[in-house]
């Protein structure tokens, strides 16, 4: 249970920090937004990230990977939270590569993992169908026919779904909505016949898509893992996503906090620095303690993935619930403590507030994860 980054991971983190500050600061996200960029991220930036090896951090060496694990990837993703850098890293690597690593057959791995490592393939996970995270609620149907399976249904809130090359679609091959049995994971070309993608621009200036599947024909080889047994792969993939998202949220919250503390030291009101007001001091100190506790849980959760610990699911829910709450607290306080300028678009704090809201919603809100944690603990 290493609760600290090792030398290698610290190096990776420092490099990421330097690179992102120079190449993808919050200002870059503002530019993508204001220019209504069609892709939603800079392909040039992504190429550079790939060159730095980020797309291959968690991949096994056999598939051109670095095999640095989630401690390594988490270190990079935490840094990307500081700068709110948009890239396909999360969807393609945390979601896409993880699914293939955990559930793909040799052919699927060979076909996709080296391409991911080379930055040639972008993935998205098409899971949600309602407005709240609920993996078991899937209704999109995968009916067996002579040629394989045929997909019908709709997906919503598919992160980076508009720009992905391939989709991993969570489909129901048997059972009823509400059951985890009968779910299947399908590897689908994002431009396959019958697929309609509608880009949805989200409040955080990132992108998602609503996707409809109208008689999309797949072959039997497109199934990842066993048919009907998809949840056994999906669940650990989602836990990785929750933990990685929480790592990003920690970076964002820390950045927002640091900026606020700086402001408290600079800004004067009534002839004194506002950071000298005790009420603000105490609120700042409380935020600091929350961030320190959060840091511990992110480190433990990342190492739980790498060590394949049985309590990874508990830690995923713990990390996501906590960072949901802490990111919300810190961004709300940051806006309030910045006062009038805090609610203008000119200041970058608003970008963190919006990113916090969207990331809180992705892969389960706090209620979802406290309920899950309690159930996992038997009460």
């Amino acid at each position, binding site marked *: 249970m290493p609760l600290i980054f090792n030398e290698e991971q610290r190096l990776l983190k420092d490099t990421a920090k330097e690179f992102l500050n120079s190449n993808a600061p919050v200002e870059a996200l503002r530019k993508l937004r204001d220019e209504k960029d069609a892709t939603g991220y800079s392909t040039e930036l992504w190429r550079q990230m790939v060159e730095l090896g980020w797309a291959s951090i968690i991949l096994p060496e056999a598939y051109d990977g670095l095999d640095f694990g989630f401690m390594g990837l988490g270190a990079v993703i935490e840094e990307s939270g500081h700068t709110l850098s948009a890239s396909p890293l999360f969807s393609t690597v945390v979601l896409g590569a993880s699914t293939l690593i955990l559930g793909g057959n040799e052919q699927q791995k060979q076909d996709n993992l080296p391409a991911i490592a080379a930055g040639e393939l972008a993935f998205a996970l098409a899971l949600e169908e309602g407005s709240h995270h609920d993996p078991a609620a899937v209704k999109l149907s995968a009916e067996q026919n002579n040629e394989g399976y045929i997909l019908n249904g709709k997906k919503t809130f598919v992160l980076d779904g508009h720009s992905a090359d391939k989709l991993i679609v969570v489909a129901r091959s048997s059972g009823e909505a509400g059951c985890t049995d009968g779910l299947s994971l399908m590897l689908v070309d994002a431009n396959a016949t019958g697929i309609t993608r509608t880009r949805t621009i989200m409040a955080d200036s990132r992108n998602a898509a609503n996707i409809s599947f109208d008689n999309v024909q797949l072959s039997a080889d497109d199934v990842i893992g066993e048919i009907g047994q998809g949840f056994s792969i999906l669940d650990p993939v989602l836990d990785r996503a929750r933990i990685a998202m929480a790592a990003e949220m920690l970076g964002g919250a820390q950045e927002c906090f640091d900026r606020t503390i700086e402001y408290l030291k600079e800004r004067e009101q009534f002839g004194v620095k506002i950071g000298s007001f005790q009420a603000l001091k105490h609120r700042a100190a409380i935020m600091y303690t929350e961030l320190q506790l959060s840091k511990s849980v992110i480190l433990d959760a990342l190492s739980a993935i790498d060590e394949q610990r049985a309590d990874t699911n508990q830690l995923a829910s713990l990390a996501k619930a906590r960072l949901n709450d802490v990111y919300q607290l810190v961004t709300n306080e940051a806006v309030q403590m910045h006062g009038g300028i805090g*609610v203008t678009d000119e200041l970058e704090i608003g970008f963190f507030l919006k990113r916090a809201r969207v990331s809180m919603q992705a892969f389960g809100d706090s209620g979802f994860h406290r309920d899950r944690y309690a159930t996992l603990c038997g009460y």
Partner: protein
Amino acid sequence: MEALQQFRATTREWLEANCPQSQRQPATREEQVWAGRNKTFPSDDAKIWLEKMSAKGWTCPDWPAAYGGGGLGDEETKILLEEMKSLGCRKPLLDIGIWMLGPALLEYGTEEQKLEHIPKIIRGDIRWCQGYSEPGAGSDLASLQTRAEDKGDHFLINGTKIWTTNADKADFVFCLVRTNTDAIKQKGISFLLIDMETEGVSTSLIELISGESEFCQTFFDNVKVPKNNLVGELNAGWSVAKSLLKHERKLMSEMGELPGPGFSPAQAAQKYVGLNNDGKLKNAALREQLTQHEMDYRCLGLTHFRTFEERINGVADSNVPLIMKYVGTEEQKKKDGLLVALLGSQGIGWEQGESFTADEILSTRSWLFSKALSIAGGTSEVQLNIIAKRVLGLPDA
């Protein structure tokens, strides 16, 4: 009591006879009628309704009849509002001249100023905006820098004001300006009325985190203002401003009344989260939050009613209204935050279209805008300082 019952009966009769059917439902944002020199009406009915009401002075029912107001007492005013509510009559006119400037002008204005401005406010001829804050001043209003130099027959204004809501649409601004730079902060400030059409006045919109914004920055570049536009004594504008701030804070505490998404949190919960077989909201944490909010919101409403009852009955506790800005805006923030949480991924969209309905986008934007409520018009921190000092009598540091 009989006179009041009589008043209620005739009021109801008059409203039923004069309020057009189309004006008997809540106004959407587009249907609101704001005051102004060149105001446009969304419909003929809206025009008729304003004319009928302003003719009776009922756009400002408790203002003196001498200036065109309704001349009603507290209890009559309450009855009028109750009857309007019961028929669903919308407000015929919106303007911060009604909510803020008018009461202060009635208290501090010269007879000439009252005769000039009050009737126009009542009729909606002039749209007002407010110029208090300045860039960098924040909660420390008294540190303002906008200068008004005495040039004999006029004041010459130079400086800039921020958060001047709807200044781009307003005809007049009431302003705090510095008329004595030697005096300590509050002592050298005066209260001026400035016509926005005067040469040298310009405005620009401020973009907020919620996107669209009604806030402006207003610039004064060698603007000449007649001396009789000074309200109250020279260098004593702070008293006028404080009196006005009370009204602003009351206004902020009632912001919940502004048009928002077409569903309440409870309705959104049922629609977006859904109920279990046992009739309970599916997400237990959201159910707790929703219930807590609904309970607190009800208590807030009851407290509004209570202060009103106390005032009517002559047992008002002057301390209670001091909490309303704080509680009202904090609760509104919670409500808007709860609403987007209930909407889930439908509450984080940015652009209306096939993926997000107008109400959903309005929810997201309202949530972001709500962050300004506990900052504008006196931050929550300033409000708590005031309660601690004025109500609880806790000592200064």
